[in-house]
Protein backbone atom coordinates (compact mmCIF):
# COMPACT_ATOMS: atom_id res chain seq x y z
CA UNK A 1 0.00 0.00 0.00
CA UNK A 2 1.22 3.45 -0.79
CA UNK A 3 0.17 6.95 -1.58
CA UNK A 4 -0.39 7.81 -5.23
CA UNK A 5 1.33 10.15 -7.65
CA UNK A 6 -0.65 12.49 -9.90
CA UNK A 7 -1.14 10.02 -12.73
CA UNK A 8 -2.45 7.37 -10.36
CA UNK A 9 -4.62 9.89 -8.51
CA UNK A 10 -6.27 11.13 -11.69
CA UNK A 11 -6.67 7.71 -13.32
CA UNK A 12 -10.29 6.49 -13.41
CA UNK A 13 -10.93 3.88 -10.73
CA UNK A 14 -10.67 0.25 -11.77
CA UNK A 15 -14.40 -0.17 -11.24
CA UNK A 16 -17.45 -0.52 -13.47
CA UNK A 17 -18.37 2.94 -14.78
CA UNK A 18 -21.64 2.73 -12.84
CA UNK A 19 -19.69 2.62 -9.58
CA UNK A 20 -17.98 6.00 -9.56
CA UNK A 21 -18.74 9.63 -10.42
CA UNK A 22 -16.36 12.02 -12.14
CA UNK A 23 -16.25 15.12 -9.97
CA UNK A 24 -16.75 17.31 -13.04
CA UNK A 25 -20.39 16.31 -12.63
CA UNK A 26 -20.44 18.55 -9.55
CA UNK A 27 -18.52 21.52 -10.81
CA UNK A 28 -18.63 21.93 -14.60
CA UNK A 29 -20.84 24.90 -15.67
CA UNK A 30 -21.83 23.20 -18.93
CA UNK A 31 -23.03 20.12 -17.10
CA UNK A 32 -24.93 22.32 -14.66
CA UNK A 33 -26.69 24.10 -17.55
CA UNK A 34 -27.60 20.75 -19.09
CA UNK A 35 -28.96 19.52 -15.76
CA UNK A 36 -31.29 22.50 -15.63
CA UNK A 37 -32.63 21.76 -19.10
CA UNK A 38 -32.63 17.98 -19.15
CA UNK A 39 -33.53 17.21 -15.53
CA UNK A 40 -34.93 20.15 -13.59
CA UNK A 41 -37.09 21.46 -16.43
CA UNK A 42 -38.54 18.03 -17.18
CA UNK A 43 -38.99 16.17 -13.88
CA UNK A 44 -41.84 16.39 -11.40
CA UNK A 45 -40.62 18.22 -8.32
CA UNK A 46 -42.09 18.78 -4.88
CA UNK A 47 -43.51 22.26 -4.33
CA UNK A 48 -45.16 22.26 -0.92
CA UNK A 49 -47.62 20.43 1.28
CA UNK A 50 -51.26 21.34 0.76
CA UNK A 51 -51.56 22.38 4.43
CA UNK A 52 -49.49 25.39 3.41
CA UNK A 53 -52.47 26.41 1.27
CA UNK A 54 -55.27 25.42 3.61
CA UNK A 55 -58.00 27.81 2.47
CA UNK A 56 -59.36 29.03 -0.83
CA UNK A 57 -57.23 31.85 -2.28
CA UNK A 58 -54.24 31.04 -0.04
CA UNK A 59 -50.96 31.51 -1.87
CA UNK A 60 -47.40 30.49 -1.19
CA UNK A 61 -44.42 31.77 -3.18
CA UNK A 62 -41.26 29.77 -3.54
CA UNK A 63 -37.94 29.89 -5.27
CA UNK A 64 -37.05 26.26 -5.57
CA UNK A 65 -37.23 26.24 -9.31
CA UNK A 66 -35.13 28.14 -11.78
CA UNK A 67 -37.97 30.62 -12.00
CA UNK A 68 -39.99 32.28 -9.24
CA UNK A 69 -43.24 30.39 -8.68
CA UNK A 70 -46.41 30.89 -6.71
CA UNK A 71 -48.86 28.19 -5.67
CA UNK A 72 -52.48 29.31 -5.32
CA UNK A 73 -55.46 27.38 -3.99
CA UNK A 74 -58.36 28.39 -6.18
CA UNK A 75 -61.97 28.97 -5.38
CA UNK A 76 -62.57 25.46 -6.72
CA UNK A 77 -60.17 23.99 -4.11
CA UNK A 78 -57.55 23.04 -6.69
CA UNK A 79 -53.91 24.08 -6.27
CA UNK A 80 -52.40 25.73 -9.32
CA UNK A 81 -48.84 26.94 -9.76
CA UNK A 82 -47.86 29.93 -11.87
CA UNK A 83 -44.70 31.79 -12.70
CA UNK A 84 -44.68 34.54 -10.06
CA UNK A 85 -44.19 37.11 -12.77
CA UNK A 86 -46.46 39.77 -14.16
CA UNK A 87 -46.59 39.17 -17.93
CA UNK A 88 -46.60 42.92 -18.55
CA UNK A 89 -43.07 43.95 -17.55
CA UNK A 90 -41.79 41.06 -15.45
CA UNK A 91 -42.49 42.44 -11.98
CA UNK A 92 -42.70 39.93 -9.15
CA UNK A 93 -46.44 39.55 -8.76
CA UNK A 94 -46.73 38.12 -5.24
CA UNK A 95 -44.03 39.67 -3.06
CA UNK A 96 -45.19 38.19 0.27
CA UNK A 97 -44.05 34.66 1.08
CA UNK A 98 -47.60 33.56 1.86
CA UNK A 99 -51.06 35.05 2.25
CA UNK A 100 -54.58 35.06 0.88
CA UNK A 101 -55.79 36.93 -2.17
CA UNK A 102 -58.89 36.35 -4.28
CA UNK A 103 -57.46 38.69 -6.92
CA UNK A 104 -53.86 39.78 -7.26
CA UNK A 105 -52.94 43.20 -8.53
CA UNK A 106 -49.40 43.85 -9.73
CA UNK A 107 -47.84 46.67 -7.74
CA UNK A 108 -46.18 48.15 -10.82
CA UNK A 109 -48.96 49.03 -13.29
CA UNK A 110 -51.96 47.53 -11.49
CA UNK A 111 -52.75 44.70 -13.87
CA UNK A 112 -55.01 42.30 -11.96
CA UNK A 113 -55.25 38.50 -12.16
CA UNK A 114 -57.70 35.96 -10.78
CA UNK A 115 -56.91 32.61 -9.15
CA UNK A 116 -57.05 30.85 -12.51
CA UNK A 117 -54.31 33.11 -13.81
CA UNK A 118 -56.55 35.15 -16.10
CA UNK A 119 -55.85 38.83 -16.53
CA UNK A 120 -59.11 40.46 -15.46
CA UNK A 121 -58.18 44.12 -15.39
CA UNK A 122 -55.71 46.52 -16.97
CA UNK A 123 -55.96 50.24 -16.19
CA UNK A 124 -56.82 52.27 -19.30
CA UNK A 125 -56.70 49.24 -21.62
CA UNK A 126 -57.67 50.98 -24.85
CA UNK A 127 -54.12 51.45 -26.23
CA UNK A 128 -53.52 47.72 -25.70
CA UNK A 129 -56.72 46.90 -27.56
CA UNK A 130 -55.57 49.23 -30.33
CA UNK A 131 -52.28 47.31 -30.43
CA UNK A 132 -54.20 43.99 -30.60
CA UNK A 133 -52.95 42.88 -27.18
CA UNK A 134 -56.11 41.56 -25.60
CA UNK A 135 -56.52 40.65 -21.94
CA UNK A 136 -56.93 37.06 -23.13
CA UNK A 137 -53.28 37.14 -24.22
CA UNK A 138 -52.08 38.51 -20.87
CA UNK A 139 -52.73 35.56 -18.56
CA UNK A 140 -50.15 34.16 -16.19
CA UNK A 141 -47.89 31.27 -17.18
CA UNK A 142 -49.32 28.18 -15.46
CA UNK A 143 -47.13 25.14 -14.91
CA UNK A 144 -48.30 21.56 -14.60
CA UNK A 145 -49.38 20.83 -11.04
CA UNK A 146 -50.62 17.62 -9.45
CA UNK A 147 -51.19 16.52 -5.86
CA UNK A 148 -50.63 13.10 -4.31
CA UNK A 149 -51.36 12.36 -0.63
CA UNK A 150 -51.38 16.11 0.02
CA UNK A 151 -47.96 16.60 -1.55
CA UNK A 152 -48.06 19.22 -4.30
CA UNK A 153 -45.75 18.65 -7.26
CA UNK A 154 -45.04 20.80 -10.30
CA UNK A 155 -43.41 20.24 -13.64
CA UNK A 156 -42.06 23.01 -15.85
CA UNK A 157 -42.58 20.76 -18.87
CA UNK A 158 -46.05 21.28 -20.38
CA UNK A 159 -46.28 17.67 -21.54
CA UNK A 160 -44.75 15.41 -18.89
CA UNK A 161 -45.73 11.86 -18.00
CA UNK A 162 -48.54 11.98 -15.41
CA UNK A 163 -47.33 12.31 -11.82
CA UNK A 164 -48.82 8.90 -10.91
CA UNK A 165 -46.77 7.29 -13.65
CA UNK A 166 -43.61 9.21 -12.68
CA UNK A 167 -43.84 8.21 -9.01
CA UNK A 168 -45.30 4.73 -9.47
CA UNK A 169 -45.83 3.18 -6.04
CA UNK A 170 -42.75 4.69 -4.44
CA UNK A 171 -44.85 6.70 -1.97
CA UNK A 172 -47.45 4.01 -1.30
CA UNK A 173 -45.99 3.19 2.11
CA UNK A 174 -46.67 6.81 3.13
CA UNK A 175 -50.31 6.75 2.06
CA UNK A 176 -51.64 6.08 5.58
CA UNK A 177 -49.12 8.47 7.12
CA UNK A 178 -50.17 11.33 4.89
CA UNK A 179 -53.87 10.70 4.52
CA UNK A 180 -55.34 8.78 7.48
CA UNK A 181 -55.37 11.91 9.64
CA UNK A 182 -54.78 15.47 8.49
CA UNK A 183 -51.10 16.41 8.66
CA UNK A 184 -49.53 19.83 8.49
CA UNK A 185 -46.16 21.49 8.17
CA UNK A 186 -45.05 22.86 11.54
CA UNK A 187 -41.39 23.48 10.74
CA UNK A 188 -39.69 25.23 7.85
CA UNK A 189 -36.16 26.44 7.48
CA UNK A 190 -33.67 26.80 4.69
CA UNK A 191 -29.95 26.68 4.20
CA UNK A 192 -27.87 27.99 1.33
CA UNK A 193 -24.78 25.81 1.18
CA UNK A 194 -21.60 25.87 -0.84
CA UNK A 195 -22.07 22.49 -2.44
CA UNK A 196 -23.49 21.08 -5.64
CA UNK A 197 -27.14 20.07 -5.36
CA UNK A 198 -26.33 16.40 -5.93
CA UNK A 199 -24.00 16.38 -2.94
CA UNK A 200 -26.91 17.15 -0.63
CA UNK A 201 -29.12 14.60 -2.39
CA UNK A 202 -26.34 12.03 -1.93
CA UNK A 203 -26.12 12.70 1.79
CA UNK A 204 -29.61 11.24 2.13
CA UNK A 205 -28.70 8.13 0.15
CA UNK A 206 -25.26 7.44 1.64
CA UNK A 207 -25.88 5.53 4.87
CA UNK A 208 -22.21 4.60 5.09
CA UNK A 209 -21.63 8.01 6.68
CA UNK A 210 -23.47 7.08 9.88
CA UNK A 211 -20.34 6.97 11.98
CA UNK A 212 -19.96 10.68 11.42
CA UNK A 213 -22.90 11.43 13.74
CA UNK A 214 -22.26 11.46 17.45
CA UNK A 215 -25.91 10.74 18.19
CA UNK A 216 -25.99 7.74 15.88
CA UNK A 217 -22.86 6.42 17.56
CA UNK A 218 -24.85 6.62 20.78
CA UNK A 219 -27.94 4.83 19.52
CA UNK A 220 -28.13 1.32 18.19
CA UNK A 221 -28.26 1.89 14.46
CA UNK A 222 -24.64 0.89 14.01
CA UNK A 223 -24.90 -2.80 14.78
CA UNK A 224 -24.57 -5.79 12.51
CA UNK A 225 -28.11 -6.84 13.41
CA UNK A 226 -29.76 -3.55 12.47
CA UNK A 227 -27.56 -3.08 9.39
CA UNK A 228 -28.93 -6.12 7.66
CA UNK A 229 -32.56 -5.41 8.39
CA UNK A 230 -32.32 -2.53 5.98
CA UNK A 231 -33.39 -2.76 2.41
CA UNK A 232 -32.65 -0.44 -0.49
CA UNK A 233 -35.55 -0.61 -2.95
CA UNK A 234 -34.93 0.72 -6.42
CA UNK A 235 -37.98 2.17 -8.18
CA UNK A 236 -38.42 3.31 -11.77
CA UNK A 237 -37.45 6.89 -12.70
CA UNK A 238 -34.60 6.98 -10.18
CA UNK A 239 -36.64 6.88 -6.98
CA UNK A 240 -35.44 4.91 -3.95
CA UNK A 241 -36.91 3.61 -0.71
CA UNK A 242 -34.79 2.80 2.32
CA UNK A 243 -36.79 0.74 4.77
CA UNK A 244 -36.29 -1.67 7.64
CA UNK A 245 -34.12 0.63 9.72
CA UNK A 246 -34.93 0.28 13.41
CA UNK A 247 -33.53 2.58 16.02
CA UNK A 248 -33.52 2.24 19.77
CA UNK A 249 -33.47 5.83 20.97
CA UNK A 250 -32.62 4.61 24.44
CA UNK A 251 -32.55 7.16 27.21
CA UNK A 252 -31.16 10.13 25.33
CA UNK A 253 -31.37 12.96 27.82
CA UNK A 254 -32.79 15.57 25.50
CA UNK A 255 -35.84 13.80 24.11
CA UNK A 256 -38.91 12.12 25.42
CA UNK A 257 -39.57 8.52 24.38
CA UNK A 258 -41.36 8.37 21.07
CA UNK A 259 -43.99 6.07 22.53
CA UNK A 260 -45.15 9.03 24.62
CA UNK A 261 -46.23 10.93 21.53
CA UNK A 262 -48.92 10.08 19.05
CA UNK A 263 -47.23 8.27 16.20
CA UNK A 264 -47.90 9.22 12.62
CA UNK A 265 -50.31 6.69 11.09
CA UNK A 266 -48.65 3.60 9.69
CA UNK A 267 -45.35 4.17 11.48
CA UNK A 268 -43.72 2.41 14.41
CA UNK A 269 -41.88 4.39 17.07
CA UNK A 270 -38.48 2.93 16.28
CA UNK A 271 -38.54 2.93 12.49
CA UNK A 272 -36.55 5.23 10.27
CA UNK A 273 -37.80 5.30 6.73
CA UNK A 274 -36.39 7.36 3.88
CA UNK A 275 -37.55 7.93 0.32
CA UNK A 276 -35.41 9.97 -2.06
CA UNK A 277 -37.41 11.06 -5.10
CA UNK A 278 -35.50 11.85 -8.25
CA UNK A 279 -34.20 14.43 -8.67
CA UNK A 280 -34.20 16.61 -5.57
CA UNK A 281 -36.67 15.67 -2.84
CA UNK A 282 -36.40 13.33 0.13
CA UNK A 283 -39.14 12.26 2.52
CA UNK A 284 -38.11 10.63 5.77
CA UNK A 285 -39.86 9.60 8.93
CA UNK A 286 -38.90 8.82 12.50
CA UNK A 287 -42.10 7.45 14.01
CA UNK A 288 -43.60 10.70 15.17
CA UNK A 289 -42.38 13.16 12.57
CA UNK A 290 -41.83 13.46 8.85
CA UNK A 291 -39.17 15.58 7.18
CA UNK A 292 -39.18 16.70 3.57
CA UNK A 293 -36.01 18.11 2.00
CA UNK A 294 -36.00 19.97 -1.27
CA UNK A 295 -32.72 20.88 -2.92
CA UNK A 296 -32.58 23.66 -5.48
CA UNK A 297 -29.50 24.16 -7.64
CA UNK A 298 -28.46 27.83 -7.64
CA UNK A 299 -25.04 27.57 -9.27
CA UNK A 300 -22.77 24.56 -9.83
CA UNK A 301 -21.41 24.97 -6.33
CA UNK A 302 -24.27 26.63 -4.46
CA UNK A 303 -27.55 25.06 -3.46
CA UNK A 304 -30.63 26.03 -1.53
CA UNK A 305 -31.93 23.32 0.77
CA UNK A 306 -35.38 23.68 2.31
CA UNK A 307 -36.46 21.58 5.27
CA UNK A 308 -40.03 20.93 6.34
CA UNK A 309 -41.23 19.10 9.42
CA UNK A 310 -44.71 17.57 9.41
CA UNK A 311 -46.94 16.35 12.22
CA UNK A 312 -50.59 15.78 12.92
CA UNK A 313 -52.84 18.77 12.46
CA UNK A 314 -54.97 17.72 15.42
CA UNK A 315 -52.10 17.59 17.90
CA UNK A 316 -52.75 18.65 21.46
CA UNK A 317 -50.36 21.33 22.65
CA UNK A 318 -48.49 18.71 24.67
CA UNK A 319 -48.17 16.30 21.74
CA UNK A 320 -47.04 19.08 19.42
CA UNK A 321 -44.34 20.16 21.84
CA UNK A 322 -42.98 16.63 22.11
CA UNK A 323 -43.17 16.25 18.34
CA UNK A 324 -41.24 19.50 17.91
CA UNK A 325 -38.56 18.31 20.34
CA UNK A 326 -38.23 15.02 18.51
CA UNK A 327 -38.02 16.78 15.16
CA UNK A 328 -35.43 19.23 16.42
CA UNK A 329 -33.28 16.56 18.08
CA UNK A 330 -31.99 15.33 14.72
CA UNK A 331 -33.40 17.60 12.03
CA UNK A 332 -33.59 21.20 13.25
CA UNK A 333 -31.04 23.87 12.28
CA UNK A 334 -29.53 23.51 15.76
CA UNK A 335 -29.87 19.74 15.98
CA UNK A 336 -27.22 17.10 16.47
CA UNK A 337 -27.32 15.66 12.95
CA UNK A 338 -28.31 18.24 10.37
CA UNK A 339 -25.41 20.68 10.88
CA UNK A 340 -23.05 17.70 10.64
CA UNK A 341 -24.58 16.57 7.35
CA UNK A 342 -24.42 20.07 5.89
CA UNK A 343 -20.85 20.46 7.11
CA UNK A 344 -19.89 17.23 5.32
CA UNK A 345 -21.50 18.32 2.06
CA UNK A 346 -19.60 21.61 2.10
CA UNK A 347 -16.30 19.97 2.98
CA UNK A 348 -16.58 17.49 0.09
CA UNK A 349 -17.64 20.29 -2.25
CA UNK A 350 -14.48 22.19 -1.40
CA UNK A 351 -12.33 19.34 -2.68
CA UNK A 352 -14.40 18.80 -5.81
CA UNK A 353 -14.52 22.50 -6.63
CA UNK A 354 -10.76 22.81 -6.44
CA UNK A 355 -10.14 19.76 -8.58
CA UNK A 356 -8.29 18.08 -5.73
CA UNK A 357 -10.44 14.99 -6.08
CA UNK A 358 -11.23 13.48 -9.48
CA UNK A 359 -13.69 10.74 -8.64
CA UNK A 360 -16.31 9.93 -6.03
CA UNK A 361 -16.67 6.29 -5.18
CA UNK A 362 -20.12 4.63 -4.98
CA UNK A 363 -19.06 0.99 -5.29
CA UNK A 364 -20.23 -0.65 -2.01
CA UNK A 365 -22.37 -3.69 -2.71
CA UNK A 366 -24.13 -5.52 0.13
CA UNK A 367 -27.09 -7.11 -1.64
CA UNK A 368 -29.01 -3.83 -1.40
CA UNK A 369 -28.85 -4.03 2.37
CA UNK A 370 -26.89 -2.43 5.20
CA UNK A 371 -24.72 0.34 3.71
CA UNK A 372 -24.97 -0.62 0.06
CA UNK A 373 -24.34 2.29 -2.33
CA UNK A 374 -27.06 0.94 -4.64
CA UNK A 375 -29.27 3.95 -3.98
CA UNK A 376 -26.64 6.35 -5.26
CA UNK A 377 -25.90 4.13 -8.26
CA UNK A 378 -29.61 4.09 -9.05
CA UNK A 379 -29.77 7.88 -8.82
CA UNK A 380 -26.79 8.26 -11.16
CA UNK A 381 -28.18 5.71 -13.61
CA UNK A 382 -31.25 7.93 -13.99
CA UNK A 383 -29.07 11.04 -14.08
CA UNK A 384 -26.92 9.48 -16.84
CA UNK A 385 -29.98 8.41 -18.83
CA UNK A 386 -31.47 11.88 -18.75
CA UNK A 387 -28.17 13.64 -19.38
CA UNK A 388 -27.18 11.31 -22.23
CA UNK A 389 -23.75 10.70 -20.75
CA UNK A 390 -22.37 8.59 -17.92
CA UNK A 391 -21.74 10.20 -14.56
CA UNK A 392 -18.37 8.46 -14.64
CA UNK A 393 -17.42 10.45 -17.76
CA UNK A 394 -19.81 13.40 -17.92
CA UNK A 395 -17.65 15.48 -20.25
CA UNK A 396 -17.79 12.78 -22.91
CA UNK A 397 -19.10 14.12 -26.21
Amino acid at each position, binding site marked *: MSSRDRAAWERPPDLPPTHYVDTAAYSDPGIFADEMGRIMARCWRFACHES*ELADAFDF*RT*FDHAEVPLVAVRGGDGRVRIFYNVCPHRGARLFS*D*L*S*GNARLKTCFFHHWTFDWKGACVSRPRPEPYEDANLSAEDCGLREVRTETLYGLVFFNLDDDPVPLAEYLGDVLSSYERTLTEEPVE*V*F*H*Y*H*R*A*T*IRANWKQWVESNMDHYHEW*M*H*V*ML*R*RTNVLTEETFFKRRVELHPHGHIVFRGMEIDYGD*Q*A*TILPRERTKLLPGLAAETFHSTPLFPNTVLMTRGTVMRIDTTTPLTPDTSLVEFRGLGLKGDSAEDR*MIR*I*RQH*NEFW*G*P*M*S*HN*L*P*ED*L*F*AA*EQCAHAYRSGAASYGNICREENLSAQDDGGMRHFYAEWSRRMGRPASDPLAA
Partner: protein
Amino acid sequence: MGAGKEEIRDFLNRVADALDREAWDEFLSMCAPEFEYRVTAHSYELDEDMIWLIHNLDGLRHLFEVLPEQLGRKGTRMLRHVSIVAIEPGETDGRMIATSKVIAVRTSPEGVSELFAAGRYIDVVDAAGAAPRLIRRETRLDTRELGIGSHVPI
Protein backbone atom coordinates in the same frame (compact mmCIF):
# COMPACT_ATOMS: atom_id res chain seq x y z
CA MET B 1 -33.06 43.38 48.74
CA GLY B 2 -33.00 41.97 45.22
CA ALA B 3 -30.85 42.86 42.27
CA GLY B 4 -31.42 46.22 40.63
CA LYS B 5 -31.38 47.02 36.94
CA GLU B 6 -27.67 47.77 36.87
CA GLU B 7 -26.86 44.49 38.52
CA ILE B 8 -29.07 42.62 36.07
CA ARG B 9 -27.48 44.46 33.16
CA ASP B 10 -24.06 43.40 34.38
CA PHE B 11 -25.32 39.85 34.93
CA LEU B 12 -26.67 39.53 31.38
CA ASN B 13 -23.42 40.78 29.94
CA ARG B 14 -21.56 38.16 31.97
CA VAL B 15 -23.95 35.46 30.70
CA ALA B 16 -23.16 36.46 27.11
CA ASP B 17 -19.47 36.50 27.87
CA ALA B 18 -19.61 33.01 29.39
CA LEU B 19 -21.32 31.72 26.23
CA ASP B 20 -18.77 33.49 24.02
CA ARG B 21 -15.92 31.87 25.99
CA GLU B 22 -17.70 28.52 25.79
CA ALA B 23 -17.50 28.40 29.56
CA TRP B 24 -20.50 26.08 29.70
CA ASP B 25 -20.30 25.24 33.40
CA GLU B 26 -20.07 28.91 34.26
CA PHE B 27 -23.11 29.58 32.07
CA LEU B 28 -25.08 26.76 33.71
CA SER B 29 -24.17 28.10 37.15
CA MET B 30 -25.95 31.33 36.20
CA CYS B 31 -29.19 29.45 35.50
CA ALA B 32 -31.91 28.54 38.00
CA PRO B 33 -32.79 24.83 38.42
CA GLU B 34 -36.02 25.37 36.48
CA PHE B 35 -34.23 27.11 33.62
CA GLU B 36 -35.68 26.75 30.13
CA TYR B 37 -33.85 27.78 26.97
CA ARG B 38 -35.52 28.06 23.61
CA VAL B 39 -34.70 29.39 20.16
CA THR B 40 -37.73 30.59 18.22
CA ALA B 41 -38.46 32.20 14.88
CA HIS B 42 -41.51 33.27 12.97
CA SER B 43 -41.96 31.62 9.60
CA TYR B 44 -43.47 33.97 7.07
CA GLU B 45 -43.68 30.97 4.75
CA LEU B 46 -46.04 29.18 7.15
CA ASP B 47 -47.22 32.28 8.98
CA GLU B 48 -46.50 30.38 12.19
CA ASP B 49 -44.17 30.74 15.15
CA MET B 50 -41.63 27.94 15.30
CA ILE B 51 -39.46 26.50 18.05
CA TRP B 52 -36.07 25.47 16.76
CA LEU B 53 -34.50 24.40 20.03
CA ILE B 54 -35.88 23.87 23.51
CA HIS B 55 -33.99 22.53 26.50
CA ASN B 56 -34.17 22.46 30.25
CA LEU B 57 -31.02 22.45 32.35
CA ASP B 58 -30.46 18.69 31.89
CA GLY B 59 -30.94 19.01 28.16
CA LEU B 60 -28.36 21.79 27.99
CA ARG B 61 -25.92 19.79 30.09
CA HIS B 62 -26.28 16.92 27.65
CA LEU B 63 -25.86 19.29 24.71
CA PHE B 64 -22.63 20.69 26.16
CA GLU B 65 -21.40 17.21 27.05
CA VAL B 66 -21.56 15.97 23.44
CA LEU B 67 -20.25 19.21 21.91
CA PRO B 68 -16.61 18.03 21.87
CA GLU B 69 -17.66 15.01 19.79
CA GLN B 70 -19.88 17.00 17.47
CA LEU B 71 -18.50 17.48 13.97
CA GLY B 72 -17.21 20.96 13.28
CA ARG B 73 -14.04 22.95 12.85
CA LYS B 74 -11.86 23.47 15.88
CA GLY B 75 -11.36 27.16 16.44
CA THR B 76 -14.77 28.28 15.19
CA ARG B 77 -16.09 30.88 17.61
CA MET B 78 -19.31 32.75 18.14
CA LEU B 79 -19.44 36.22 19.64
CA ARG B 80 -22.72 37.63 20.91
CA HIS B 81 -23.09 41.38 20.86
CA VAL B 82 -25.89 42.16 23.32
CA SER B 83 -27.61 45.49 23.64
CA ILE B 84 -30.07 45.58 26.51
CA VAL B 85 -33.23 47.45 25.60
CA ALA B 86 -35.38 47.19 28.71
CA ILE B 87 -35.40 45.63 32.17
CA GLU B 88 -38.80 45.60 33.78
CA PRO B 89 -40.49 43.88 36.71
CA GLY B 90 -42.20 40.61 35.86
CA GLU B 91 -45.62 39.55 37.02
CA THR B 92 -44.11 37.46 39.79
CA ASP B 93 -42.35 39.11 42.71
CA GLY B 94 -38.60 39.02 42.47
CA ARG B 95 -38.58 38.34 38.73
CA MET B 96 -37.41 40.78 36.11
CA ILE B 97 -37.92 40.59 32.38
CA ALA B 98 -35.08 41.81 30.22
CA THR B 99 -35.30 42.39 26.48
CA SER B 100 -32.06 42.67 24.53
CA LYS B 101 -31.04 42.92 20.93
CA VAL B 102 -28.44 40.32 20.01
CA ILE B 103 -26.16 39.94 17.03
CA ALA B 104 -24.15 36.73 16.83
CA VAL B 105 -20.99 36.84 14.75
CA ARG B 106 -19.31 33.59 13.81
CA THR B 107 -15.59 33.58 13.16
CA SER B 108 -13.89 30.76 11.29
CA PRO B 109 -10.57 29.26 12.35
CA GLU B 110 -9.00 31.32 9.54
CA GLY B 111 -10.30 34.45 11.23
CA VAL B 112 -13.08 35.29 8.81
CA SER B 113 -16.05 36.77 10.65
CA GLU B 114 -19.58 36.77 9.33
CA LEU B 115 -22.98 37.61 10.71
CA PHE B 116 -24.56 34.38 11.91
CA ALA B 117 -27.83 35.58 13.38
CA ALA B 118 -29.72 38.63 14.56
CA GLY B 119 -32.59 38.66 17.00
CA ARG B 120 -33.63 39.32 20.56
CA TYR B 121 -33.20 37.73 23.93
CA ILE B 122 -36.30 37.71 26.10
CA ASP B 123 -34.96 36.78 29.53
CA VAL B 124 -36.72 36.10 32.78
CA VAL B 125 -34.31 36.71 35.64
CA ASP B 126 -34.64 35.69 39.26
CA ALA B 127 -33.56 38.90 40.93
CA ALA B 128 -34.60 38.01 44.46
CA GLY B 129 -31.67 35.87 45.53
CA ALA B 130 -28.13 36.67 46.53
CA ALA B 131 -27.16 36.77 42.87
CA PRO B 132 -29.32 37.02 39.75
CA ARG B 133 -30.07 33.79 37.89
CA LEU B 134 -31.69 33.06 34.54
CA ILE B 135 -35.06 31.35 34.80
CA ARG B 136 -35.90 31.47 31.13
CA ARG B 137 -34.26 32.64 27.92
CA GLU B 138 -35.98 32.87 24.58
CA THR B 139 -33.70 33.68 21.68
CA ARG B 140 -36.16 35.04 19.16
CA LEU B 141 -34.41 35.08 15.81
CA ASP B 142 -34.99 37.43 12.93
CA THR B 143 -32.43 35.46 10.96
CA ARG B 144 -33.94 32.26 9.65
CA GLU B 145 -31.20 31.08 7.38
CA LEU B 146 -28.36 29.85 9.56
CA GLY B 147 -26.15 28.30 6.88
CA ILE B 148 -25.13 24.84 8.02
CA GLY B 149 -26.63 25.59 11.43
CA SER B 150 -25.06 25.41 14.87
CA HIS B 151 -24.62 23.01 17.74
CA VAL B 152 -23.93 25.90 20.09
CA PRO B 153 -26.77 27.90 21.67
CA ILE B 154 -26.99 31.43 20.42
